[in-house]
């Protein structure tokens, strides 16, 4: 309905392969960025920043990471939180042990450490597939958290195993308020989402999807299966690692290895499923949905006068039911619903 595409023709491959080929989409995204970077910081409260927006952005990034691996490359992982943990604790140690370490570099290095661990634990994917692989990624989950708990060096000999993230300072500017942290996270997430989009629209993304859809054919046309899968593990883990570091530095502040438990892994998997397997946009939608759902539930529970303990159990049930619902009704999640809606708007008033 709002789309007016007549007259939007492409005279070069560059303009044909841009991320948002439709002008209206470009305007909408530009408007959204303006709102996110300018309007929101002006008007949002500290609660909204720290309870909704910051976790939403961080989870989006982690979901994006898992989506690269699961959605694009077709490798199911239940160890997302472990890669996040590696990113967080590696960043912490880089900051701690390297004097003058810039915090952004520490995040990147944390991500790289996560990527290396990802490659290591991705090795089995060369021989096994499906839920054998999923089961084996659980090994990552348990092993990494155990390691971080048991090896005191990682937590700087903290007796409780809890670390406190260092002050975030970039070029002398200290990121202290929730608003500052929101802007930092937003900036990082935007850049990384852009990079992810670039990857999935290039050869590397096509190699992931090819391996996902038909690995024998992918091999026959010249993709190297091993390289492709390990790249997916590395990139995915890098994203999760950075998300894990942000989780520690910009959200929790103090954190113990157990914060990155299996439950978090599942939660991020849910975001992928509900948001949309194999969709960058879906990662954001899924994260938004799962961040907002408990808040909505607790409001409902509060108004219906049920005991608060109900909320957490109800949350589990609703999550579970939603997963099943989406898998049955719309396996490509909210992103597909969005896409269908958009198609309808483009064709409006015609049905097809």
């Amino acid at each position, binding site marked *: *309905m709002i*789309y*007016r*595409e*007549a*007259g*939007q*023709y*492409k*005279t*070069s*491959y560059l303009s*044909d392969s841009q991320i948002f080929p439709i002008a209206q989409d470009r305007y909408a995204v530009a408007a959204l960025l303006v709102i996110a970077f300018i309007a929101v910081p002006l008007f949002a409260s500290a609660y909204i920043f720290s309870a909704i927006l910051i976790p939403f952005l961080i989870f989006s990034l982690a979901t994006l990471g898992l989506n690269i691996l699961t959605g694009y490359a077709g490798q199911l992982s239940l160890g997302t939180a472990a890669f996040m943990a590696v990113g967080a604790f590696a960043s912490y140690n880089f900051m701690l042990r390297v004097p003058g370490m810039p915090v952004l570099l520490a995040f990147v290095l944390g991500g790289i450490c996560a990527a290396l661990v990802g490659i290591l634990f991705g090795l089995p994917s060369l021989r096994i597939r499906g839920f054998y692989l999923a089961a084996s990624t659980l090994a990552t989950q348990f092993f990494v958290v155990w390691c971080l708990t048991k090896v005191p060096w990682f937590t700087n000999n903290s007796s409780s195993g809890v670390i406190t993230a260092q002050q975030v300072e970039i070029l002398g500017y200290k990121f202290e308020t929730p608003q500052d942290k929101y802007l930092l996270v937003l900036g990082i997430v935007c850049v990384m989402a852009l990079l992810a989009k670039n990857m999935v629209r290039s050869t590397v993304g096509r190699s992931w999807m090819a391996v996902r859809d038909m690995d024998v054919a992918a091999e026959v046309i010249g993709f190297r299966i091993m390289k492709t899968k390990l790249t997916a593990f590395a990139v995915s883990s890098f994203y999760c690692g950075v998300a894990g570091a942000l989780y520690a530095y910009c959200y929790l502040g103090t954190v113990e290895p157990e914060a990155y438990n299996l439950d978090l892994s599942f939660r991020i998997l849910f975001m992928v499923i509900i948001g949309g397997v194999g969709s960058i946009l879906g990662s954001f939608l899924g994260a938004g949905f799962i961040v907002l759902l408990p808040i909505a539930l607790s409001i409902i529970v509060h108004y219906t006068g049920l005991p608060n303990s109900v909320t957490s159990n109800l949350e589990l049930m609703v999550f579970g039911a939603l997963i099943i619902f989406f898998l049955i009704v719309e396996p490509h999640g909210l992103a597909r619903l969005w896409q269908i809606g958009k198609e309808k708007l*483009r*064709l*409006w*008033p*015609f*049905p*097809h």
Partner: protein
Amino acid sequence: MSAPSAEIACDTFPRLLLQHASKRPNAPALREKYLGIWQTWSWAETAAEVRAMASGLAALGFKRGDHLAIIGDNRPRLYMAFAAAQSLGGIAVPMYQDAVAVEMMHVLEDAEIRFAVVEDQEQVDKLLEARESRPQIEHIIFADPRGLRSYDAPGLMSLEALRSAGATFDQAHPGRYEREVALGKTADVSVMLYTSGTTGKPKGVCQSHEAFITAARGGVQFDKLVATDNTLSYLPMAWVGDHLFSYAQFLVAGFTVNCPESADTVMTDLREIGPTYYFAPPRVFESLLTSLSIRMEDASHIKQRLYNAFMKVALRCGSDILNGRAVSAKDRLLYALGNVLVYGPLKNTLGMSRIRVAYTAGAAIGPDLFRFYRSIGINLKQLYGSTETCAYVCLQPDGEIKFDSVGKAAPGVEVKIADNGEVLVRGAMVLKEYYKRPDATAESIDSAGYFRTGDAGVFDSDGHLKIIDRAKDVGHLLSGEMFAPNYIENKLKFFSHIQEAVCFGNDRDHVVAFINIDLTAVGNWAERRHIVYSGYIDLAGKDEVVALIKDCVEKVNAELATEGELASSQIARFLILHKELDPDDDELTRTRKVRRGFIAEKYEPLLSALYSGKTVQHIETQVKFEDGRTGSIAADVKISDAKRLPALGKAAA
């Protein structure tokens, strides 16, 4: 003659091209969707290509006055070939690309074609076959080399090779190209378009640069066309309309012509380009509306209601708003809302949201159809013209749109009605002559220089011309009343269920009709009523369908009853033909006009059955399939009576 200067008059197409190339070298001239994107030629590039092609032709011995056949789909390089031939003082002869070999043969021979620029292997094959009996075809130049690598026929070369030969030739003969262009005179014949000819062999209509430039200038001025306009060229290049819109006006106004990727993708390409200036014959608008209605039928209930409600608003006030008349504030508001919710998106999905001016011509357009497009805000207008008048005689001025007229005489055109009702035209756009047919030329241009259009028409009180029929088709019933078959046929064809109609009645006591149903529309109608059918023949024979058509026929009768003398032309009996009329079977011309005489002869048993009172007639017909084989179809055709009303005018008198 001295070397050309910038001051040279822009009165030939090559000089117009050079002018654009020097004034706006980087502006887009031609675009073609090729390899997935819109490849663009700027005016400078276009001029350079034309120069290379022209030089290449010159190197091959193409001389002033030579004819260059151009055959293929609408492609930028083929349009350039027109200019290349004209640069050398040659004459472009575009030919219908889907014509069968026999038809092509006549033109090739008549125009003494020695040179041809063609699109692809398909056309090369046709020409090579033609050459076996017409050895004068010396040079065949093809644009798309696909599949032609192993051909080694003499005189066959690629456009690429022609251009590089041209570049070499150009270097060896500096200034030659400029001299050739400067030699061109505005009165020279620039193009020869073959008339479709409902009877007899096609005649070559010789048009000068001046004729087409005058016609184009008139249109450009009339509709304020500018260099930033865009058109989509998808109608045959051999057709006068395309030559006016995609070549003459293109060079006069300097707008951009866009060529679609393939015949399958015209609709998508139309949507992508979103032309600002658009031309289509009524049948295109009609099939668009048909497919639109079919698509809407699948829409959800809410959408349908929304659509219907706002279409009502549009039909009530849309045309008035477009014509700039006074409309109530409430209607304006509703229309604005409708524009957001329905018309805007509708135009957008059709690729018509940027259209400033759209034209239709070539056949009569149904009032409902016409009203529909205008009501949703598309400035659709009718024009009247013919190959002999550069498709330019009458135009509808903005704000003065009437559904049943073709508008006022265009700038620079004199129109008058002869005593026998025939429309006569005089002006620069009238043809120079029919090629090698002084008899025909003399017959169609009178001593005062008026061209006989062959159409019967009248001027209404506002000075708008209304075309009734072909003058020669206008006949008389035995009772002496006027009988205008086309007029009746068009009324029938305005019903979406009727694809074609052929009426007979000259020198008879009443009118009868052959009808072709529209397979898509009637098929859909049948599906919704759960009527099972296997194909055209089966569907055409269904009683329900006969009843449907009978209803249409009777509505036409009711209209005719109000139109004075024509009231006697009400259809007494009709039948639904068992096969679709087809140009391949010579029943229609390439421009889809019915060949009434031929049809009457071919289906003689049916015609006599109509006049004999039979209710069923068996018939067997030869048909030609796409691959050239022939076969026959047989059917028992049902014949029905239609109710006729007393003439209203007469009853009152």
